[in-house]
């Protein structure tokens, strides 16, 4: 896997790589997230957890440009990205995966990853029309990147299979490979372990840690605590669309409010939300 200089922790960027400030998103008057603020430290894996409906997906959609915030802003390396379209955000170095797989079903696994490597190339329409009159160096580079990314997630032998024929576990890994091929600084992972068995989850955890070793910054969204707790260096807990707490995995696990929001006390939590006038989505 090719290392790029910009992906390693940058000395002059000692502050957070990404900063979410007072983020609020209303859907038809209902707040999916409200006043959410947190920072992502460069080169670290941060977990974002919370029960279903706590606003995790909305947060990641806002961060990747699929939604625009009603209030608040997202700063990436000091630049306000909250009103940028998704492809501009990707170009800055933020790439995401999807909870409900969004693979290009009719393309092969390899082609999926090649699309992931889109940002690594420059050739446009004019170059494309020239065909063989144009040197194939860039195309060969992209192929190499895609092969490496597929190999990295362990799908090296499955490149020729159409994406819709892959198992859901393989599909998850392909989403990851696609994101890696873009060589982003920040990867937003939306429940990458959903539907994976224990062995696959362990493998995923290893891959994520090795990405961190390469200097990538990761945001791991999941509602299963175990994976997040084993790999994250800090954890943000969302509940009812708001930040409940932020801390190390140990601190978060010890926090009774987190346990309450997750375990049997769903009722307590729902009642509290109802009192605040936030309806269940």
């Amino acid at each position, binding site marked *: 896997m090719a290392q790029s200089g910009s992906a390693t922790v940058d000395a002059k960027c000692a502050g957070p790589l990404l900063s979410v400030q007072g983020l609020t998103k209303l859907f038809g008057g209902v707040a999916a997230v409200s006043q959410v603020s947190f920072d992502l430290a460069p080169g670290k894996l941060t977990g974002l957890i919370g029960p279903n409906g706590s606003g995790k997906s909305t947060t990641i959609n806002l961060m990747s*440009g*699929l939604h625009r915030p009603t209030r608040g802003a997202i700063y990436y390396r000091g630049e306000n990205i909250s009103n940028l379209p*998704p*492809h501009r955000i990707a170009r800055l170095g933020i790439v995401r995966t999807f909870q409900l797989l969004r693979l290009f079903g009719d*393309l092969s696994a390899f082609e999926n990853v090649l*699309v992931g490597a*889109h*940002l690594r*190339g420059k050739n446009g*329409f004019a170059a494309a029309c020239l065909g063989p009159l144009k040197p194939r160096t860039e195309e060969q580079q992209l192929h190499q990147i895609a092969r490496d990314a597929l190999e990295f997630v362990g799908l090296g032998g499955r490149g020729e299979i159409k994406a819709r024929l892959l198992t859901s576990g393989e599909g998850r890994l392909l989403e990851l490979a696609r994101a890696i091929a873009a060589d982003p600084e920040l990867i937003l992972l939306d429940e990458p372990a959903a539907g994976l068995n224990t062995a696959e989850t362990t493998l995923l955890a290893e891959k994520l840690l090795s990405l961190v070793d390469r200097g990538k910054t990761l945001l791991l969204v999941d509602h299963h605590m175990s994976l997040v707790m084993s790999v994250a260096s800090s954890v943000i807990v969302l509940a009812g669309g708001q930040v409940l707490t932020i801390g190390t995995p140990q601190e978060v696990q010890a926090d009774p409010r987190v346990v309450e929001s997750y375990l049997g006390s769903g009722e307590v939590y729902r009642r509290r939300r109802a009192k605040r006038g936030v309806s269940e989505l």
Partner: protein
Amino acid sequence: MTFAGVLAVIAIPLLSGNGYIVQVASLAAIGAIMAVSLGVLYGHSGQLSFAHAAFYGVGAYTTVVLHTQHGLNFFLSLLVGAGLSGAVAFVVGLPTLRLRGNYLAIATMALQLGISEVFVNAKITGGSVGIFGIVRPTIAGISLESPFAYYVLLVIAAVLVIAVAHFLVHSRVGRGLAAIREDETAAGVLGVDAIWYKVSIFTITAMIAGLAGGLFAYQLEYVSPESFNLDWSIAVLSMVIIGGKKSAIGAVLGAVIVTIVTQLLFSVGELQFLIYGLWIIVIMIFLPDGLISIWQTAGRSTARGTNL
């Protein structure tokens, strides 16, 4: 082997020495250019234009006005015609392709019907009569006046267009377009600028249609509005659907089939459009990847066994 076969098929009309056969083959070559163009737009990129006949018409009239009426160089006239078609596509594509959903199809349908009115009513197009007296050009001392010579030019143009379409599809932007077709949101978060890509490919394919129109005008040697109406857009769409929307070979196959069937059905008048309508429905339902998919599936299962 395959190459020799293709060459033989292309050469048959020339060797036949039969004017009618060369004319049909010429129309098939023009149809192939149109079908490949729409195939790249619809089959590969997932965007639909009902206005390919309109772009074809813009190209035809522009080329004729510039070359025949104002004496501009033939190839330059073709280029300007293609450029003008592209400009129209750009203006229509820009607002519609910002939107999700099939706005382009509706807007191009309106463009097609609206521009047909322009062709019929405008002075520069010669109104419903059209423009006569078109003479095929002489290029680099070679007269293309004979339909046989002009057929060679058409084949060269078709081969070039097919090659460009092939390179385009199998390139970085080609993959971006396929990704947009499959899932525009996922393409976007990977950095593909979907709006720019969609507008670009729509403009490029419209330019190709404009080029085909310019070539067509000199094949037929006159232009009139009925050559550029919605029926022709639909005929091209049915070429793409029948042959196979996912490959250039499919589009060419469709062009040959539809051109020949149209000739055979010429005497039945409107009935041919009943047939277009029916086969579009039947193929959309039962053979969504066109006739070429029968051959491809057969080839795959004999060679490797099915891996499904």
